[in-house]
């Protein structure tokens, strides 16, 4: 592979290699780049996890994943990819078919009490006892996880979530946003070290979403490890330290978010030309350049990790070819573009 394109500039070579990898083979495990900071043992370790439902549908296929203590990990994937199944297995709601999972060293099946006591879960759906009061609901949740009643803590929790004023209201009388915050209060009622948020901001307005993000950051600052699934890539981009992409039950990528955006995030540099070009001069054929239909714009697509020198080389080449540049602009792909690119490969 490298031999074939060794004559190309380094970052173009990378693009070729990556596109080859994504286009032809399937990326299985987190193999792209070395892991970010593997200092401490992982707080959650999933190894060779598979789940086949009774009907024969394979929801997860040989998933291995490690979550670092204190990080925010975003699990991305289209509907039905297996995100919720993965979370449900870790939390003990769904039984795994194969594989091992441990939370802070406790096996989630053999040592389920220790493992579950440290985990809080906010499921995707709004599932609350509608007839019970807010305060009684969070009290039950705290007790279920084996913690002594602590109304002072629950009060501060409900205050943080702006639910204290409604503590005696029946859950059914709350607004949608409040119900979602109550779900979070339930999950946090036993002071977990690990918090799972399954689509925390689905169907939530912008303001509330910002509030949710702020809360997640506060929790992380207090040392809580957070694993969230989301459809809003903006959310992962904004919040996550690392992202995992899951597709048809397979974890196809786990990467530090910044690195992912650097290595897979494409940058586009568009030149507005002084004079239209009919065709691309032969001297420039080696570059991934595309000419607009009217011949007035040249677009150069590249990734960031190659440094800035190649752009300088390109500029020299353009100059040497006698192409005058009137203006230029750059665009950078978002995590969303990267994600759509990754997921799209399977279709």
């Amino acid at each position: 592979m490298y031999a074939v394109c060794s004559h190309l500039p380094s970052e173009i070579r990378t693009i070729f290699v990556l596109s080859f990898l994504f286009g032809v083979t399937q990326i299985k495990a987190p193999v792209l780049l070395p892991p970010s900071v593997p200092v401490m043992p992982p707080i959650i370790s999933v190894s060779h996890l598979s789940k086949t439902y009774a009907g024969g549908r394979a929801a997860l296929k040989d998933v291995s994943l490690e979550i670092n203590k204190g990080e925010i990990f975003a699990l991305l994937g289209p509907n039905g990819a297996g995100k919720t199944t993965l979370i449900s297995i870790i939390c003990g709601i769904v039984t795994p078919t194969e594989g091992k999972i441990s939370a802070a060293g406790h096996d989630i099946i053999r040592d389920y009490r220790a493992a579950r006591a440290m985990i809080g879960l906010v499921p995707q759906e709004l599932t609350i006892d509608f007839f019970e009061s807010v305060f009684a609901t969070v009290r039950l949740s705290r007790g279920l996880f084996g913690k002594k009643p602590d109304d002072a803590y629950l009060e501060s929790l409900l205050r943080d979530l702006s639910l204290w004023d409604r503590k005696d209201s029946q859950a059914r009388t709350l607004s949608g946003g409040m119900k979602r915050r109550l779900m979070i209060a339930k999950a946090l009622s036993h002071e977990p070290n690990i918090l799972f948020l399954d689509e925390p901001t689905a169907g939530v307005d912008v303001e509330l979403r910002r509030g949710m993000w702020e809360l997640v950051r506060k929790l992380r600052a207090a040392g809580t490890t957070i694993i969230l699934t989301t459809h809003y890539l903006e959310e992962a981009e904004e919040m996550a330290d690392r992202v995992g992409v899951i597709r048809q039950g397979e974890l196809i990528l786990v990467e530090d978010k910044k690195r992912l955006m650097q290595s897979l995030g494409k940058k586009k540099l568009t030149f507005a030309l002084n004079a239209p070009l009919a065709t691309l001069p032969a001297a420039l054929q080696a570059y991934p350049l595309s000419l607009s239909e009217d011949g007035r714009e040249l677009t150069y697509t590249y990734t960031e990790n190659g440094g800035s020198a190649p752009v300088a080389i390109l500029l020299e080449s353009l100059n040497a070819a006698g192409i005058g540049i009137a203006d230029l602009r750059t665009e950078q792909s978002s995590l969303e573009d990267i994600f759509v690119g990754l997921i799209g490969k399977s279709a």
Partner: protein
Amino acid sequence: MNFQAIRAIWIYEFARMRRTMLQSIVSPVLSTALYFVVFGSAIGSRISHVGGVSYGAFIVPGLIMLNLLTQSIANASFGIYFPRFVGTIYEILSAPISAVEIVIAYVGAAAAKSMFLGLLTLATAAVFINIGILHPLWMLAFLVLTSITFSLFGFVIGIWADSFEKLQLIPLLIVTPLTFLGGSFYSIDMLPPFWRNVTLVNPVVYLISGFRWSFYGLSDINVGVSLAMTLLFLALCSGIVFWIFKTGYRLKT
């Protein structure tokens, strides 16, 4: 043992019961009163005595059993069906709580409520009629055993049911007929021999007979057999519950 969890579930369940207490109390009190008017006074005046006990007094243990069975099944089945229906069961499944603790919490809460209502029925009956209890400790033992057994049975129904209709189905189609045909209002010795033997298949016969023995010392069936049958049914329901948690039936996929 996660005692905090059991405690929390009990508090929660009793709070739910308090909210519905009025219905819960009115129903047994009213039905007991009605049974006394119809069977005790209207029809009962034509029936003199059964085994030396006035008919009104004779039906009291049967009436208590009737309420005990209905309430145990209703409370326990609803108690576990509701979280499944609403979806809050996820929290119980993800909590550090064992199957035994879940059963102690939900079945215990339901059984406690039906015991209370059973005693309330007894108190209502005492308003109408003079009741002496020959073996009060055995009476309580049967009360406790029956409440727990049928709360376990209700728990099984609450797990099995996947709609509110099914939740009503077994109590309505099986338990009510069995109770009425189980000798609540008559001694099975009053039946022709063939039907008397058929009746012996009905587990409720043993419960009512044993319970009645604890009141008046008279029974259709030897009290030891009654006790053994009650314990057998308790073991059977416990076995099914054990199997449910072992396999995750209707709880986990």
